[in-house]
């Protein structure tokens, strides 16, 4: 029972995928209990951890960049401008730092024990960075081979890779597709020369257009994402509209719109403070967010997560793993895994990471990080699912964490359902008038007879997600 009810998994609206490849019914595997539990008034489950599910996703961190962007606080290794990729990625061009790192990473993969022996294969693999496109395709292939050998790969896995304009040519992309990559996430960020320079990006607008050309022309690659950043210093509304127009024109299947966060310890962190010129004010940057939501929706994209848009059926399956609170492996510098209910972040420095891999191989490493308890799980579920348009599945939530907690959450959100920041929906995902919602909350027995989901509204609720989610945190963990 628990195993089925938890983790909270919600299938996304199952409009017919436009993808050319058949897609495995990923979400359905976990979703079966939702419809059978409507009449169940069983007491909340005792706070036992659910039996772990085997991960079906793997994140692989490839930390290399030409140089660090001014906003970036990820664990990366800056190679310097010397290491421009040679077309075709011949042996001679391979940077020993990359080769050594991949070696280390392969050791981590083989030292990692699969969670199940019943052979649940990987459904998604995500090469993130850094700039993974700087890694020669041959090495990417060795990693995929290692993953396949260790955990198995499903018949049609989603294999994504982050690529930056100016780091690849058509041949190199073809090669990547040849070794199994089938989804590209293109780090464009902006379509204005000045903005790209001001961010410390290693490419210009020309490279952006070239890269878009290469990706769209690539045989066997239908699924690609354009990544943009809003609220950059000196960015105007006109520039933002322009970037969105160019994006729509390029017809990616997916768009990620990140909102610039000024992080401590970054160059931007030293130069700027949020909301203060030349950064846009809160009002302006909220406006950018709303414009993106409007323009991209008009162009046929679904705003399925706070910062993610896709053409119907093109959700990033790998990222859905995160938002649905499902387990995933992770490999490489600074990467975070979620296995057997335990979240673990690897060391962010190469030396410590190497030492850690050694310990892993020696079997002398064990998790220091505490495993999450019921409360932590509930926090994760709320925090992650409220980022999505699908929202929080109240029946599943009640089943895992108790009906009264679900009811308290709804009560907390009551004023915001009324003001429109939060949307309550019935079983058929029709929005409920707030009067009906409130009727449902009057006593615990009736609760759930109408309302089945709550989600944050687009764009106003999404824009205040931190506020709304931290309110929920106050209920779950007072």
């Amino acid at each position: 029972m628990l195993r089925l009810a938890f983790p909270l998994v919600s299938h996304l609206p199952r409009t017919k995928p436009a993808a050319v490849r058949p897609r495995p019914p990923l979400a359905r595997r976990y979703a079966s209990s939702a419809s059978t539990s409507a009449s169940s008034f069983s007491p909340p489950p005792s706070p036992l951890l659910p039996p772990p599910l085997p991960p079906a996703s793997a994140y692989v961190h490839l930390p290399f960049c030409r140089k660090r962007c001014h906003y970036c606080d990820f664990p990366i290794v800056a190679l310097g401008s010397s290491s421009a990729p040679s077309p075709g990625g011949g042996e001679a061009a391979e940077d020993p730092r990359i080769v050594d790192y991949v070696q280390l990473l392969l050791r981590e993969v083989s030292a990692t024990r699969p969670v199940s022996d019943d052979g649940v294969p990987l459904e998604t693999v995500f090469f993130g960075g850094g700039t993974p496109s700087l890694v020669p395709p041959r090495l990417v292939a060795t990693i995929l081979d290692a993953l396949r050998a260790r955990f198995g790969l499903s018949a049609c896995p989603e294999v994504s890779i982050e690529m930056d304009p100016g780091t690849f040519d058509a041949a190199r992309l073809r090669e990547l597709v040849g070794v199994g990559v089938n989804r590209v996430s293109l780090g464009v960020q902006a379509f204005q020369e000045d903005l790209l320079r001001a961010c410390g990006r290693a490419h210009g607008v020309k490279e952006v257009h070239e890269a878009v050309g290469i990706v769209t022309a690539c045989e066997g690659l239908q699924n690609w994402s354009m990544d943009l950043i809003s609220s950059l210093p000196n960015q105007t509304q006109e520039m933002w509209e322009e970037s969105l127009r160019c994006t729509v024109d390029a017809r990616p299947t997916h768009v990620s719109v990140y909102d610039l966060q000024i992080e401590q310890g970054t160059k931007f962190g030293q130069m700027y403070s949020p909301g203060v010129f030349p950064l846009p004010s809160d009002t302006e940057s909220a406006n950018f967010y709303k414009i993106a939501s409007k323009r991209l929706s008009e162009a046929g994209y679904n705003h399925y997560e706070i910062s993610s848009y896709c053409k119907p059926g093109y959700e990033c399956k790998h990222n859905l793993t995160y938002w649905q609170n499902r387990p995933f492996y992770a490999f490489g510098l600074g990467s975070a895994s979620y296995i057997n209910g335990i979240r673990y972040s690897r060391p962010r420095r190469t030396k410590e990471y190497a030492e850690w891999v050694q310990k892993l191989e020696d079997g002398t490493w064990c998790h220091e990080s505490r495993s999450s308890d019921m409360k932590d799980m509930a926090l994760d579920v709320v925090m992650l699912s409220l980022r999505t348009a699908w929202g929080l599945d109240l029946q599943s939530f009640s089943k895992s964490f108790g009906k009264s907690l679900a009811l308290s959450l709804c009560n907390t959100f009551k004023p915001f359902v009324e003001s429109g920041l939060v949307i309550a929906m019935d079983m058929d995902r029709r929005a409920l008038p707030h009067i009906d919602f409130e009727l449902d909350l009057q006593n615990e027995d009736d609760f759930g007879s109408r309302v089945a989901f709550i989600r944050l509204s687009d764009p106003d609720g999404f824009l205040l997600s931190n506020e709304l989610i931290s309110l929920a945190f106050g209920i779950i963990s007072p």
Partner: protein
Amino acid sequence: MAGAAVLRRSARRIYRHLAAAPAFSRSVLQQPKRLLSSQSSPEHGARGAVSGSELALYPPERVRNFSIIAHVDHGKSTLADRLLELTGTIQKGHGQPQYLDKLQVERERGITVKAQTATMFYRHVSASQDSDTPKYLLNLIDTPGHVDFSYEVSRSLAACQGALLVVDAAQGVQAQTIANFYLAFESNLSIIPVINKIDQPTADPDNVKDQLKRLFDIDPSEALLTSAKTGQGLEQVLPAVIERIPSPPGKCDAPVRMLLLDSYYDEYKGVICHVAIVDGALRKGDKIASAATGRAYEVLDVGIMHPELKPTGVLYTGQVGYVISGMRSTKEARIGDTLHQAKSTVEPLPGFKPAKHMVFSGLYPADGSDFEALSHAIEKLTCNDASVSITKETSNALGMGFRCGFLGLLHMDVFHQRLEQEYGAQVISTIPTVPYIFEYGDGSKVQVENPAALASNPGKRVAACWEPTVIATIIIPSEYVGPVIMLCSERRGEQLEYTFIDAQRALLKYQLPLKEIIVDFYNELKGITSGYATFDYEDSEYQQSDLVKMDILLNGQPVDAMATIVHNQKAQRVGKELVEKLKKFIERQMFEITIQAAIGSKVIARETLSAMRKNVLAKCYGGDITRKKKLLEKQKEGKKRMKRVGSVDIPQEAFHELLKVSNSK
């Protein structure tokens, strides 16, 4: 410093720790360079025991009870130190300066809050009979230097027959000099003027003599010139005390009768009372009773403060000392009360008054869950300060707390500070208020100690309102007269007097509503006079005023803890200021917030705080949700610290900030 830890203990017992705490910094001592020729009697050195039979050697003729009165910083405590050293009561360099100021707040602010008392023995070489050098028992009864404690001062003075009026030779007569002089004068004390700090380069003792003559009609030849710093002139002080101050009156053979000067609570010994024996003698084992409460006690221990508690088993007529009698709380030991032989009925000594609370404020735990801790801290503190009145109250914004009544502003500040320093309690206090009286058309009257408790729409006509006033004395260099007059009239003051005390300085007397001076008046006065003004005040009558209750509303909901009573003509301005200030301190929330000041149902000031636009983390984070989660947890904790009215979260700082505006300008 180890000394600091000791200081934080129960203030009155500190001297017991002195020997064990050599870390009391000696470097801060400002000892006179030259040792005075000590006339102390060796048999009563600081460590010598004093027996009851020895006390019998001091009949009233050989006893002098006096206090030192002065404007703050003119050297009262330093002079007291010197006299204690001179008589060998304390050893030089063995205590911190201002020996009698034992509370941390007293040291920090350089003020005396609690009156202290010490007994000294002194062999006096009389000018007339050089063969006879009789010993005297001198009781130095220190007094608080502030008007808030004027009742305590008056009780201390009631046990004295004389006072040293200390005046800084450079600063001359200041506001508190005048107030203290009149208190002493009204108590019929012999006054010995002491012009102190004559070592200063700017000292002008002749000018000070002129002022004393002009203001108090003191003969210039009576003034002693001293430096408590260098020791110059100090040798004249105690002879003057003996020669010019009469010995205590009192009937040695009457049943015992004594004035209760002060009391404090000691964890080990219970309540310790300081008393002045007016008639008769008090012995260990005697049965005594309180005139105020009628309760009877047995004397368990009796002795003198030398300066520590020294049991003697007996105190004779005219002597001053301590009594321990099994009282459980200082509330049983009312300052100014008369204690007397239990069997006999006696005439109570005049002047006993219950504490009068003039300033009220609500005290709430900064973190709502700490109510128990705050309650405990307040209980402990009031053990030693029975003059604070405490009642529980509940606020919609701040939860459970206490309404506290204080003798005055300083008393309130000191109480807050001691709560934080000695008991580590974090508190939010509401805007201080004074006891107003509202009379309605139907003849009913209410005293309002908490503005929130006054009905905003009483449904009946307010016939009249009264508020307490004070008479303020302000002394300033004459070039500041203009701005000070402006300030006083802004504060609704009425001028009573405007004179010059010498060529450069003016004295102003005003009647002012107490409410107008309890917030920020003194700071502003200091500000506009470059710090030169000195200020003192005494309670005066209630006056009729046009007063209204002003509510602060957030999205239509009144915030009870922010309600105030203001003068009708100032309501608009104060309301506007409060509302603007709140707008600054309340953070944007997920909805628009209207902030209003209202009198009854009439809104007099209004601000809107627009809804928050954005608080979202839209960042690529590769499955690493831990940082994001931490951020949300932090945000949640931030919300928890807020106080909430309706759906609006109010940061604690907003309450602190309102204290600053409420009444100014």
